[in-house]
């Protein structure tokens, strides 16, 4: 769809300034683009390429490496339902089928109201709380089908203000004052880190250091 809007472009420049090399900012910038449009648009990638001084192909390479960056529009809320072992044993598959039936969509599709996309995911590292689901990457634990219905109706009723839209992961909006930025010199200039320099060389066979 579009390039970053003016406010986001300003924020993008602030994010870029946090890194010793502009292109290191690509991942937070991709989050920003996704937050703006709901997905990472081609034009947004072209804009990011200009902002960090790389070729668009390099932005595309970074973007497509990560599942969580969407290159096509998705629902406002992504429901990641786990069907890996622990969840499957405790009803993950059933939960997925229930979700498909309730929302009338298959994994990858967007519901008619534009609110939901279901994804069938592998382990999301909450096996002790199985079966589980993420809504825009925020967890819902030990979910029954009724609990699922409740989540959906709460979202529809606008009661879930705790969930960010489009799944943006928060850190892009941190405002760190310039004097508190850490480690911003480039690796070439940084020299040997203290923890490394302080290590004793390994003794050789004769036992000398």
């Amino acid at each position, binding site marked *: 769809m579009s390039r970053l809007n003016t406010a986001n472009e300003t924020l993008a420049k602030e994010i870029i300034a946090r890194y010793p090399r502009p292109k290191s900012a690509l991942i937070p910038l991709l989050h920003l683009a996704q937050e703006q449009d709901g997905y990472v648009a081609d034009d947004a*990638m*072209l804009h990011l390429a200009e902002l960090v001084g790389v*070729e668009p*192909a390099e*932005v*595309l*390479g970074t973007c*497509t*490496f990560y599942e969580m960056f969407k290159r096509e529009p998705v629902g406002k809320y992504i429901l990641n339902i786990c069907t890996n072992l622990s969840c499957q044993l405790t009803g993950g598959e059933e939960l997925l089928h229930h979700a498909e039936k309730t929302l009338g969509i298959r994994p990858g599709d967007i519901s008619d109201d534009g609110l939901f996309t279901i994804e069938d995911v592998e382990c999301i590292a909450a096996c002790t709380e199985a079966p589980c689901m993420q809504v825009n990457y925020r967890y819902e634990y030990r979910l029954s089908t009724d609990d699922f219905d409740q989540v959906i109706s709460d979202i529809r009723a606008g009661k879930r203000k705790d969930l960010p839209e489009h799944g943006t992961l928060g850190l892009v909006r941190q405002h760190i004052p310039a004097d508190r930025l850490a480690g911003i010199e480039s690796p070439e200039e940084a020299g040997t880190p203290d923890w490394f320099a302080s290590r004793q060389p390994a003794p050789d066979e004769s036992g000398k250091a």
Partner: protein
Amino acid sequence: MSTTESTEAVTGVPFFLNGQALSANDGELLIDACERNGVHIPRFCYHERLTPVGMCRMCLVEVDTGRGAALQPSCMLPVTPEMKVNTETEATKRAQSGILELFLINHPLDCPVCDKGGECPLQDNAYAFGPGETRFVEEKRHYEKPIPISDLVNLDRERCILCDRCTRFSKEVAGDPLIHFIDRGNETQVNTFPDHPFSSYFSGNTVQICPVGALTATPYRFKARPWDLTATESTATVDSTGARIALQSSRDEMVRVLGVDSEAVNWGWLSDKERFSYEAANSDARLTEPLAKAGSSFDSIRWNNAIGQTAKALSIGSDRVGVLGGARLSVEAQYVWSKLLQGSGISNVDANIGDGIAADLVLGLPKTTIAEAVAPGSIIVLMAPDPKEELPTLFLRLRHAAVESGVTIVEITPTATSLTTHASLSIHPAPGSLGAVTEAMANQLFGTSVGGVDGSDLEAVAATIAKGSTDGSNVTVIVGRSNLAESADFVSDAVQSLLRLAPEAKFLPALRRGNLMGALEMGLTPEFGPGGNPSDEPGLDTEAILRAAVNGKIDTLLLLGADPIADFPDRNLVTSAFNEVNTVVAVDTFLTDSSARADLVLPAAGFGEVDGSFLNLEGRLSPLQAKVTAKGQARDDWMIAAEIAESLGMDLGFTTLDEVRSDLSASIPSFGAVDWDALGRSDDGPLLDQGRTWSVDFGSRTEVPAVDGYGLALAVDRKLWDQGTMIHNSATLAELPEQAQLSVSAIDFEKLGVRDGEVVTIESGSIRADVGVVADTGLPRGTARIHFRLPGLDIGELIDCEQSVTTIRVAR
């Protein structure tokens, strides 16, 4: 060799290869150390000229460094003392076979219709090391079969084994990361950004280094099978870098050019112009028979008739003949022509078509080699056109020097170039002020700005260049004509000043035209005879010949492969000259803008059709070898000259190429030691002894023109893809030139108050032309740039070479 061996013995790293005690160089990778000792380890991703990445794991061998044998990728492992390496063990063989089985899971078995089949590393390794059969019965990965990723390159993602060679090359070597790995895991593919084609000048190299048939070149696709090809070693003649190539043909037709790794010159890389412009040789537009003008068209005539008429036109009176060109010819042909012209007393001879730098700068300045210029710690002063556009393989070496070897690059150019981002300092003197800017540096006058360059920038550049004298750094000036709309005299002035600033500086002439170095060495220039000896009675240069023609003082114009109507910067002067002369004789391979206006056209054998040699910008001699028979009745240039000589009653004394060569060696001292038969055997080629010790006569300095406050000073340079004859006649390349544009700085653009790309009228004197205008951050204020010889605008019409700079006014 013996000295290297003895040092190796001292500094080498002792290791064991299959039980044999050997020695590796310091830091040498195991895969290289094994190769050097005669053990080939199979590989896909490793390439000597690219950073090792360990992508493919084909190179696993068993290595024991004291902790027991383990499989290790030999391309990622520097040899360490006492390392025990075994490339023959059962474990190694199983690993190799396993890796190949994994590769073949997704690789399609379409070898019978694959261009790579027959010369494919995957095929070869599968035969030599693979399991012979697969256990994989599932469906392979599928992608749309080849997708064009540029006009020249096609990508078949099913065949790709993800070795990262093409992507690494584009990023590391070419600096054009337009292709990248996209997606992840089993879905990983190489691709471009949507609608952003892989339009790198160096894209063909990825096709050459792809270890499978995933990347194929449009000009070669389905043209031949590798086992039908025969090859010979030769030299690329499209510019003066002299990149070494292998020329391949099938059924007497050139079908492919591959880069050969010459340590001294091109490191195996080629630009797409060097790689693909062979297509022109096969073009139907080639001249195949002698032609004589009959009204507005041509009649074909017999060779003896053509030779006779040419001889007659040349014997009109030696000062009434002008000869232009010669850079297309082999050194041998240049020598024979030079002898013929000398014998006829003709001295108005110029291989520079008014778009280069003075011959004495090329022949007289202290020379260096590419390797010395880019040695770590050196300083390079770029006072030449953008090397990426004119000398692209040299550009790769320069870029590598700046990025990898810490070479300092200083630019003194009219506009930003492709090296600007790698240069430590760039100054852009306004057209006409190149001499003044360098003179201010030589005089250490940094108080005021000169030619639009701040005093502080002048001081910084001067200090860097002067380092050669202060700390002994190697300083190389790459000198060329960066602005065709500016007098070449400014370049001479600037060189004179730079020599005062850095007396030890060495020079590399940025000659664009193929064998121009050879032509100047062989005396196809008004001021020098063969071997660079100054003539007693210098003749006229191109501009003077054309002026003499306009004034009725030249009757015969002989074009040796030159196309002055297209190449000479001042279009009006050259067309008036053509209108005035009685007879124009062209020896050429195509009907060009100029040869189409000739009275007599003699068809010459071209690239790939003649044996001979080539002298590159360093003065390095390399072979040109015939691979196919010449088109139609076209003949070797030297034979044409010899026949004309005979017809004039002169005996040059040669009937064979060998005789030409021994005469050449005998009469030109720098060629005395050349072993002609060995030329094709070494990848580097001998560097001719540059033993001359005469100084350049710089003459008086050129006056700095007054600045027209309302106009923009014009900077005219060239693009790689222009409407040149070879490109125009190569089917795949012909469409690549972009439309001409006027570029101005952002400030000037704002002052014009136009939209991006809007068409404006430019005028110089009484001449006007229309062209689209864009803003370009690489331009200094007050300078406007237009590329020469692009479709849409003939900028030569606005250039008057009597003016030392060209100023244009822009109107909406």
